[in-house]
């Protein structure tokens, strides 16, 4: 049974169906991809999983528990962390304090002994931004601020990590570094759900991919299966040249 799964999730905004019966599973120890053209509903899907968006129907299961009615903070405490496509860093705190807030928060549910300050410093080092710890996040370039968000998410010691376009704003080297980091994280048993437009990044890191189009899952499978899928090519990869 999957660690995290969305079951027949529907989200309606007025007359618009942003998500129609979306079901997906996120397994521990691997990167699951969620791709699709702009506006397909990927971010909405993240919002439903993290509790920022109440689904019109359907439910979200985590670790065998129905978490559909739980508050976002409660879900975070259970082990769901995320980053945002549109930056949501704590812009008037320093990079270190961004991560420290999360690490200190972890004290509320993680009974193991740790010093939040050490966790914050280590996590910053881990994502490779130890050198900008004292900078205010509001003044950092987008790519770096994304890494701060990643560090912040990791500092909560999550079981599932939802990444919303982590590579946008990063250069090629940094993207490669991100891929290495993700592989190491899933090697440690973390489950990752990845929304991404950089196809080579997606195909290189994901073991299982869901393709979302107009709020529906139109294909799912391994990278090779998905790439070969006719519906996917029509809906998405056909325009991949412009996207990538």
């Amino acid at each position, binding site marked *: 049974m999957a660690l995290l799964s969305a079951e027949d999730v529907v989200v309606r905004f007025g007359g*618009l169906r942003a998500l129609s019966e979306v079901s997906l599973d996120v397994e521990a120890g691997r990167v699951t991809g969620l791709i699709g053209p702009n506006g397909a509903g990927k971010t909405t899907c993240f919002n439903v999983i993290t509790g920022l968006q109440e689904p019109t129907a359907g439910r979200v299961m985590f670790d065998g528990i129905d978490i559909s009615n739980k508050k976002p903070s409660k879900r975070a405490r259970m082990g769901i962390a995320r980053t945002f496509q549109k*930056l949501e860093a*704590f*812009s008037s705190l320093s990079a270190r304090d961004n991560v420290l*807030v999360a690490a*200190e928060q972890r004290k509320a549910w993680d009974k193991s002994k740790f010093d939040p300050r050490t966790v914050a410093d280590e996590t910053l080092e881990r994502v490779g931004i130890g050198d900008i710890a004292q900078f205010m996040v*509001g003044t950092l370039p987008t790519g770096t601020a994304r890494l701060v968000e990643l560090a*912040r998410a990791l500092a909560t010691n999550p079981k599932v990590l939802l990444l919303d376009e982590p590579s946008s704003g990063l250069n090629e080297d940094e993207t490669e570094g991100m891929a290495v980091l993700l592989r190491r994280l899933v090697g440690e048993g973390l489950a990752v759900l990845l929304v991404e437009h950089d196809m080579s990044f997606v195909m290189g890191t994901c073991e299982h991919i869901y393709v979302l189009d107009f709020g529906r899952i139109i294909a799912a499978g391994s990278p090779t299966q998905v790439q070969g899928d006719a519906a996917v090519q029509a809906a998405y990869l056909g325009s991949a040249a412009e996207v990538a």
Partner: protein
Amino acid sequence: MRLKGRSSTVAGALVVAAFVLYIVNVNRGATPYSWQSFATMVVVGLSLGGIYAIFAAGLVVTYSTTGIFNFAHGAIGCFLAFCYWEMRVNHGWPAPLALFVVLFLLAPAIGVGLDVLLMRRLRFAPLVVQLMVTVGLMLTFMGVTLTIWKPNTPRALQHFYESSKGVHVGDVVATWHRIITVLVALGIAVLLRTLLYKTRLGISMRAVVDNRNLAGLTGARPNVVSSASWALGCMTAGLAGILIAPETGLTVENMTLLIVTAFAAAAIAQLKSLPWAFAGGLIIGLCGAFAQVFLSFSQDFSYANEAIPAVILFIALLFLPQARIETGTIRLTKRTERLTTPWEALLGSLVMVGLVSAWANGWIPWFSGTHFGQRTDVWLGRGATFLVFGLIMMSLVPLIGWAGQVSFANYAIAGFGAAMYHHVGGQHGSPIGIFWVMVICAPLGALIAIPALRLKGLYLALATMAFAEFADKVLFRYPRILNPTASGTLYKPLRVLGFQMSSDPGDRKAFVIFLAIAIAVIFFGLQMLRRSRWARRWIAIADSPAAAATVGINLTVSKVAVFALSGALAGFAGTMLGLSKGALAVDEFPLFAGLPLVLLLAVWGSRYPVAAFMGALGLAIFPALQEMAGNPTWLTSIELLGPGLAVIGMAFQPEGAAFNAGRDLAGLLPWRRDAREEKALVVAKLRDDDVTRDEINDLGLTRAFTVDKIAKIDRALDIADEMLERPGIVVASEVTHGAPVG
């Protein structure tokens, strides 16, 4: 979950209904329920309600088309009504001419002027800044009106067609003025709706709210649209002002207070639905008329009638549907962060105490002369008052500055604290009483906030304002809270370590120094708190509630905690307020008295505890200026005008004066090399940052941009791919002109 939501709404409705029935039952007057009395109620209620509706509609139109909630709406309406009086009554112009000049020349000119000079700069500003600037504008308009038209001369606007009788509805006479009012309200309703739905301008207006950038790309001109909606807002404000003046009397206070009514109607409309704004106006009008006709409040609650809009506002907030957790706004900040160290905080505290003590002892030669800041008994008394206000501002630092929760209630809470102090020890000068007051005021602070916590930040500002109004009209007038007789509620001097502190001339020096010590201690405490996880958590919530929730921060608990802290500090300030006045009267806490405090703190920079001290010193400037100028009559409203004008500067420096000044001053300290480097960085950045937000707004598509500049613009506008995704999908309407959801 949805079921749970609905059943709690039903339960809430039952409680409110029971409460209302109880109030009605207890205060039932002599008028019998009859067709005649109901007809009277409907005639009065509809005409007042119609005016409220016009007021609220203007507010909703500006808010929904510009995203800025105009707290100055009522004050502008009041100013325009005075202008109308000047032309119509003072200069004897014919009514149609005066109406035309006021409503079609003056009002749009004010609206466009405000938009061009101020409001456009606020588009991307955090809510705190938007609120402060429009509240500052409100005080400015009040101050200007009071300066031009001195309140000691009675003025009146007549009803339209006062002489003729009107129409008989059964046995009740509906005067022409009232009929006109209702018709005008209806006309405005139809006009506004037609404008927004059938005209090109209106459609652009709605498009601009949905997505300003997108609307710009499709050919709408955001600047024209926002000017138009500010003009429209001012016109409706002026119209409502002119219509309501004969009912409330042409006084600044009465008329500006109508904003609470307009806010209540706007809250019923969820700030965006025009039909519901009208319905809200009518509901409030009818409730007011019902109370006027059928209820007779006892002596203890003689002002309860005036609190009805505030109560309705509070009730409306209870029933608004839960808002989605808000995402963040980028706050302008410095590049690196360096928190005040404990030693620096200690040094700062000592400097504060030292400065005040030196002044109080007459050791500062420059200030002991006959001019500014002379150390007379009067100035010592004033000094105590200013420091007490500084304490109240201090209570707002964690709340507004860190957690981003705007509260206008802290002055009222301090008042309540002062009142309570009399009951728990202040009547015989006990220091323990201070502690009890803090214990009482902490939950009070949280209680006021709770209805608004699940809603958007703006509602919190409205809720706290409603509380301040309710406290003024009901709480403080209740004889068991404050003594309503001429002597007022009395306080005995506070005795600590053999010193006596009170408003008594002989005790003033000790009191002033004691207050400075209190401020310094709280200053130090707040600086330490700023380094703690609590402050980090609060700032995180202010920066991005959504992200804060997803790292496990319980928003409700954290917000309640900061409100409780703020309430306790305000309570402490309240005990000092009582002492500094010696005797407290029931009418010392009008809503407007507390606003300048919030504004002055914001001017100095609400994130910095030192701003409270600077704000307190700043208060001395106004009476000092008055004295230096020989107390001329044109300066009488400076306590409103001064803070009002000062805070408008926030549109240009949103972080407050302490932000830059603090950095520059810190750079003078030998060990603060970081501050000097920071300054150098900012200066360098200003030089190459040639794309300003205004330019971006005005850019159109004619100018060539380098890739680098486009990246800069993207970042400034916070454009993520999502915003450019299928236009039809992103435009999930923020403005609905039908019924609100839920």
